[in-house]
């Protein structure tokens, strides 16, 4: 009887653990799906807008190249400067 009870507890624990793992995997997949859906939606919206502008005669490639030409980064604080600042408030 005791052995049966122990086995039942063990089986329930294993089942719960299994459910937990399955739930984690499920959450992971859901998160990936959500990210993919968001990215696809953004790309679609972007493509639609570009097409619309091209139909209006806007040379999007030219505008993009002119407006979003990569520029050299500005000088920013080094880690030593950051570590010497006691709090964020002091920086601001």
């Amino acid at each position, binding site marked *: 009887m005791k052995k049966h009870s122990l086995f039942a507890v063990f089986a329930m624990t294993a089942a719960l653990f299994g459910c937990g793992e399955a739930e984690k995997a499920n959450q*992971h997949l859901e*998160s*990936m799906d959500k*990210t993919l859906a*968001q*990215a696809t939606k*953004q*790309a679609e*919206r*972007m*493509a639609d*807008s*570009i*097409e619309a*502008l091209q139909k209006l005669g*806007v040379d*999007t*490639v030219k*505008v*993009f190249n002119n*407006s*979003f*030409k*990569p*520029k*050299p*980064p*500005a*000088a*920013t*604080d*080094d*880690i*030593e400067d*950051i*570590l010497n*600042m*006691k*709090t*964020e408030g002091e*920086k*601001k």
Partner: protein
Amino acid sequence: MKTLLILITGFISNSSFAAYSEFNKQECVRSDLNAIQSLFTRYNDYASMPGSSYSIDVAGVSFPMVKMTKSQSKAISATESLVWIVLQPTNLTDGNLYPKFLLNCKIDRNENQNYFSQKCQMVQDKPHFGLQDMKIEVYSNRNSKNCSPKESNLYISVKITTNSSEVLKIKTKVLEPAGPLASVVANLFDESTFFQAYFDYLYTEWFKTL
């Protein structure tokens, strides 16, 4: 009553909106734990490693989104480092608007149990911009039932909380030179996915090297 009103007003004026996003990746990679540890702890090289510049291609146009311009570290101990990261969104030249944050990274490596882990947490009381919080967890082990004996199981989890008002400042400045394309480009800057998309791309490229 007066004190309560002051407290409520203070709370409202100090509170800022935030957006939370997270993603996970898990893969079986051919590299061993030494190579994985070496990659994830090359803190000073992050800005020159694969994936540090993120562009997207839409309708035949390559749009540079963001790149890492600085990654500097200071070791606290053999297993703990502070890592200073600065990102440059597309064409911005105003360094005040660059997303930046300091991470505290701790690694754990157990040769006997054959695993490597790294946990990085944003340091809240040091200057930061664009992000309100960030947490990265990396876990890798050999002998995983999910992978072949010659592979390592590699898992990464990234949790990001953006500061909405600061992201809006970045977005406004980014869109400034776009002229007629401003409304189009604005589509790219969905707050919850902007940083997420960057780090997702960064780690995807890292995974490819392993």
